[in-house]
């Protein structure tokens, strides 16, 4: 239910952007979904496919790029991807690190074919 609203926001954005490219066929839309965004990529893709079925965007594919949770080290300032909830800095071992990314839910690109 949650993913359906997101899928329809993506489609709305594609529709708006497609108007800037009259006559072009929109082939692919890329989105970035962070591990902490609370969005299931599979459910999102399923919703998206259901939404475009039978419309002018029938052949538009949704490409989901999953991005990891990222933390920054309070000691050496390095930013790293967190795997398996290991939150300590892989460089210096510092355990105080801060979450700086991974909750993104963003449109990233549109691929169009111009005649």
């Amino acid at each position: 239910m949650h993913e359906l609203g997101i899928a329809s926001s993506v489609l709305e954005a594609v529709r708006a952007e497609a108007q800037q490219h009259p006559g072009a066929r929109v082939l692919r839309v890329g989105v970035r979904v962070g591990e902490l965004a609370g969005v299931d990529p599979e459910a999102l893709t399923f919703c998206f496919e259901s939404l475009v079925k039978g419309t002018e965007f029938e052949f538009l594919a949704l490409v989901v790029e999953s991005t990891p949770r990222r933390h920054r080290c309070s000691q050496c300032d390095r930013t790293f991807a967190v795997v398996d909830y290991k939150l300590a800095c892989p460089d210096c071992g510092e355990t105080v690190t801060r979450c700086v990314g991974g909750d993104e839910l963003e449109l990233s690109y549109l691929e169009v074919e111009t005649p």
Partner: protein
Amino acid sequence: MSRVPLERKILSENDRIAAELRARFQQHGILCLNLISSPGAGKTTLLERTLEGFVPGERVAVLTGDIQTDNDATRLARFGFPVRQITTGGTCHLDARMVDRALADWHVQDLNLLFIENVGNLVCPASDDLGEAAKIVILSVA
């Protein structure tokens, strides 16, 4: 074939409305708190105990979200402060637009404190900004 960059947030509409709400709360000096927890962890109970402690006439109000029922609103209305139910009709969390709509015919400027009880669910309510100053997470530990 060409690739057109499209860098923007997908749910930017929610963030936009939430930012408007936040500005409104700040302008009128209203503290807005968004209570989240898994189902049944005690949001309504905590609000009942809190409202109990306020003197009549205190400028406090509650919005309470539920997928279907208005049980929580009935429990909270007993204390004499304005309470309004937001029934999401199947949606698993409140969004900024629902809050904005629920406040539309209220004199928000008359409030000092606004509590929002989110839908019992710890997944999506954690990410939707409602314009609150802070979220309160209630955890039930055995």
